[in-house]
């Protein structure tokens, strides 16, 4: 078994070219849990490429001209939860604050959240609602994918062998945005359902992404279309009946399963509650 600790992105890509099946290790908050629990046994010939020291992956930039924030894959949840990133991407900050503990947030990265691609990943509904794009680099060069195309299934992504997530570019929207999740306790818990709502005021549109209720994070397109039409945009308000209907459409969009954490029926109910709550936070009652 080999552990490589490249200090530049080029070195990391070269290492992955040589070992395309290598495990990529960033914060370790997913991979090390699997290794510790012996779920993933490291074979004698396996390679780990640890990318946590690559400075280039830990930087971020804001481009006011395009209205986007480009986050290096190594940006941690702790950084996302504080200013200045929290001011630029408030829903992502809200999601970041729900992730684990301070110790976890100091290590866990947005790239890791994408790479693991659990439907319960807290950053993913926000990235999905905001139509983020994921940058990849590999032996064949660089490519960019919309996050919705990057997530292909439960813990499955469009990553090709030897490819590394290098960054995710997130549009900065003009409007209210927020994240909410339900778990079996109040902290340090996986989402049994989650939602991100983002308002784009200039286009008078609402985006709603749902987590833990389908194999990947999904957008609730019918709910979004309904809200765009039904919100009183001039007054910035929403009737109770509209908020309730919005929740119902969100529940209808979800395809949850029964598992040891929650039943499908509860998840559908909880999604309706979260969607209604988020819309109510975005638009007060008339």
């Amino acid at each position, binding site marked *: 078994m080999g552990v490589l600790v490249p200090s530049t992105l080029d070195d990391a890509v070269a290492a992955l070219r040589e070992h395309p099946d290598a495990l990529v290790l960033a914060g370790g908050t997913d991979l090390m849990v699997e290794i510790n629990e012996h779920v993933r046994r490291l074979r004698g010939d396996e390679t780990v490429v640890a990318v946590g020291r690559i400075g280039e992956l830990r930087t971020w930039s804001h481009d006011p001209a395009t209205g986007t924030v480009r986050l290096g894959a190594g940006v941690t949840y702790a950084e996302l939860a504080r200013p200045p990133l929290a001011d630029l991407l408030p829903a992502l900050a809200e999601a970041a604050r729900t992730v684990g503990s301070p110790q976890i947030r*100091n290590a866990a990265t947005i790239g890791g959240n994408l790479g693991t691609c659990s439907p319960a990943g807290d950053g993913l509904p926000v990235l999905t609602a905001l139509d983020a794009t994921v940058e990849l680099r590999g032996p064949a060069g660089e490519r960019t994918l919309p996050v919705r195309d990057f997530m292909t299934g439960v813990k499955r992504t469009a990553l090709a062998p030897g490819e590394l997530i290098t960054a995710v570019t997130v549009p900065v929207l003009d409007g209210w945005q927020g994240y909410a999740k339900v778990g079996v306790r109040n902290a340090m818990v996986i989402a049994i359902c989650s939602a991100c709502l983002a308002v784009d005021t200039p286009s008078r549109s609402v985006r709603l992404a749902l987590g833990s209720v389908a194999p990947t994070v999904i957008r609730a397109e019918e709910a979004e279309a309904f809200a765009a039409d039904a919100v009183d945009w001039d007054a910035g308000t929403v009737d109770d009946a509209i908020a309730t209907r919005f929740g119902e459409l969100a529940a209808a969009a979800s395809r949850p399963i029964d598992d040891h954490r929650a039943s499908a029926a509860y998840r559908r109910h909880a999604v309706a509650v979260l969607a209604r709550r988020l819309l109510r936070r975005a638009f007060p009652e008339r």
Partner: protein
Amino acid sequence: MNETYHLHVNGTRYEVADAWLGESLLYVLRERLGLYAAKGACEQGECGSCSVLVDGELVCSCLVLAASAVDVPITTVEGLAEPGSPTDVQRAFVDAGAVQCGFCTPGLVMAAHALLERNPNPTETQIREELSGNLCRCTGYGRLVAAVQQVAVERGRRSS
């Protein structure tokens, strides 16, 4: 495996030889370097008893691959102060009755130090949130919060 690597812990350079490269930093600290303060309990990053500083950041050492933590400063409780000269945080923990069985104490001392570095005057809510990654089965947390508040007050008095 007989790869050799080096870790910088508490200002000392340690050689780790003949180790399985998949070992966590927690394992290496305890089983290979004789630094027993960091405790192993959940090995999932949920209990915080293994908390250390890596490159100045509070993390769970059970989730750090030791062989990847090369070339960065690592600080454990043993490195916070000389034996016999506890830090103000450690003294406050004792004074406030925040040390009962002692199992959570090293992790909590690291977390309290990290919290006060970042936020010298935390509110109670902030203290509880910043210590939320450390479980304690004995104290009910009230004494831990009181200990941190005590340090914040003392440091405030010292600097004013």
